[in-house]
């Protein structure tokens, strides 16, 4: 342990003192919450957030020439950092244990007014976050040096500072909207938080929505209860061209034919026609293991246009098909911006489109209609601070690789 010269002004150096200060700050934050209500991110809108970030950096820069000043020594000390990290951990733990509220009820009780159910706009959280930013900035600047070991320290602490500053202070400028577009139409309006209609600087035309699904499963279902059998641990047979034979309860089954996109054909059969109204169909042969009885017929889960079809085995049991699960859904869209830019794209989950400062994501569709969904929905995200966030992520990733490579280098003595 280092020892501090007596003549200097004392600053809080034990864990106990630092923890007490953090606890007092959090209690003070809660009191502020009760008096003035939750922290309003609107306040941080550009350029306020940039000014605040610059102030923190300025303080950190001052910490270099005045590194012996008690204030700076304290704000850059390990016990202070540990106390702040513990504070953040406790607040996140509360957040992780309790359900989050999106909106406060009109007459919140005392506990709700403390704001812990909306932690990110709760004063204690905001205070700790800002103090961590300050502490990180201070140690990053103080330890900036072109020496071995200096780089890894910079990657981890500077990277985290950049990430937390851009993500936290930038949060006020972030905008996220969900837009619903009907097929064949152009939309530029979204609903705001209070259901008011907002007009966005870009419009989307939906040319086509398509959904591809996995081949469904077959199950034995009790026709009275509707529950899959055997009760409790039902058997499923995944339809798979590689495995046509299977077993469901006391019945051996074979899929004679499987049509992924079937529509009714002549004579009670089905044929493959790739169109939105089609549905998967399986021609199934079932043989009772005990009696040798044989049943044969088509099994379909059906949709709005093609009726459901079950294969009756006996008075109680039928073979049924599960609703197909989506494998991929995609929307062919054309985007227009106010500046006159136009872009066509096929959006999919995990494949968003970036246009200017906006990112457009495939969001959802009408699940009840599946492939026949009349609309597709998109999430539009405007994040002017994405670039510094990504830079922070990259620095931190490099720092993590550095930790993996270097481990903890042995120092003289600890």
């Amino acid at each position: 342990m280092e020892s501090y010269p007596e003549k200097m002004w004392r600053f809080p150096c034990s864990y106990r003192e630092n923890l007490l200060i953090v606890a007092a700050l959090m209690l003070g934050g809660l009191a502020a919450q009760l008096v003035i209500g939750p922290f309003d991110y609107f306040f941080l809108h550009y350029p306020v957030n940039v000014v605040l970030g610059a102030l923190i950096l300025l303080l950190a820069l001052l910490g270099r020439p005045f590194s012996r000043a008690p204030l700076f020594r304290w704000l850059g000390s390990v016990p202070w950092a540990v106390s702040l990290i513990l504070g953040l951990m406790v607040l996140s733990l509360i957040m992780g244990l309790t359900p989050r509220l999106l909106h406060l009820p009109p007459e919140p009780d005392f506990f709700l007014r403390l704001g812990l159910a909306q932690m990110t706009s709760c004063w204690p959280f905001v205070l700790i976050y800002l103090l961590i930013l300050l502490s990180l900035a201070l140690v990053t600047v103080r330890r900036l040096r072109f020496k071995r070991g200096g780089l890894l320290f910079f990657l981890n602490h500077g990277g985290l500072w950049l990430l937390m500053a851009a993500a936290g202070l930038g949060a006020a400028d972030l905008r996220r909207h969900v837009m619903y577009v009907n097929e064949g139409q152009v939309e530029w309006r979204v609903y705001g938080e209070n259901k008011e209609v907002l007009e966005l600087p870009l419009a989307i035309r939906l040319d086509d929505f398509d959904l591809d699904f996995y081949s469904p499963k077959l199950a034995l279902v009790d026709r009275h209860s509707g529950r899959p059998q055997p009760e409790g641990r039902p058997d499923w047979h995944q339809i798979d061209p590689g495995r046509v034979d299977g077993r469901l309860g006391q019945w051996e089954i074979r899929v004679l034919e499987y049509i992924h996109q079937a529509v009714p054909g002549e004579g009670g059969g089905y044929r493959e026609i790739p169109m939105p109204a089609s549905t998967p169909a399986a021609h199934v042969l079932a043989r009772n293991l005990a009696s040798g009885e044989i049943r044969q017929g088509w099994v379909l889960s059906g949709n709005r246009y093609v009726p459901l079809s079950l294969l009756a085995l006996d008075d109680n049991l039928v073979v049924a098909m599960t609703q197909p699960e989506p494998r991929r859904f995609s929307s062919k869209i054309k985007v227009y911006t106010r500046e006159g830019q136009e872009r066509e794209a096929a959006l999919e989950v995990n494949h968003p489109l970036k246009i200017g400062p906006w990112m457009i994501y495939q969001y959802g569709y009408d699940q009840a209609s599946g492939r026949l969904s009349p609309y597709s929905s998109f999430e539009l995200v405007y994040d002017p601070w994405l670039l510094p966030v990504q830079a922070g992520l990259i620095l931190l990733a490099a720092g993590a690789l550095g930790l993996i490579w270097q481990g903890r280098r042995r120092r003289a003595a600890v």
Partner: protein
Amino acid sequence: MTWTEFNYLAPPAVGLWWLSAAAVMRGRRRLAEAALLAGLAVFTVFVAAFWRDLGRPPMRTMGETRLWYSLFLSGAGYLAYRRWPYPWLLAFSALLASVFAIINLLKPEIHSQALMPALQSVYFIPHVTVYMLAYALLGVAAMAGLVQLRRLKRGQADPELYAFLDNVVYVGFGFLMLGLLSGAAWAKEAWGHYWSWDPKETWALVTASAYLLYIHMRLKDIRPRLTLGLLSLALLLLMITWLGVSYLPSAQGSVHVYS
């Protein structure tokens, strides 16, 4: 190549991985490395040919993702072992790689089990694999921490053990951070934002904070027992993040709970 050939290629790979684990624990390092790499080679040949014959990356079903777990675990485990020659690190990677191969052998029904669209991402496999390596390292750290705690209670901490402990925590925490960061990058691509304070994300932050506490508290030799105890607490938090979040009241509506 198809899943049929897997039944012939996977058992030799599994055998080689077991040989590797057994050899490294008996100090036969050369043999262990050779066996691990041979198993990896057999597996790589299968995955490459499987990919070619499928005509798409094998990334769409549960069974297919298990292939990558085996591949990445043995590969990343080998690299980590080359840097940090702890025998258990290699043994763990080899055994876990074989577990995923065995799951594919014993449960052919997962070969075609659907992977929901959000999971179909290039970040998925690396994300999961680095977390598995982090679990292994941090699990060992927690155990070694308990050993050190006992030494401390009996009087004297072992400086060698401290050096080992800190090293393993730094390396494990590095992998943990890679997992967190790849998760953020993935979330940006799939859900529109890199961090949404989803319960799983929040718990990942709690866990990372606990390890940060250890790392920073070790810089000063104050409260050594508390510091060592943190490693067990942090491992518990890690387990909750991994397995327990789905059961918490806060997790209703989490996007990261896959039943």
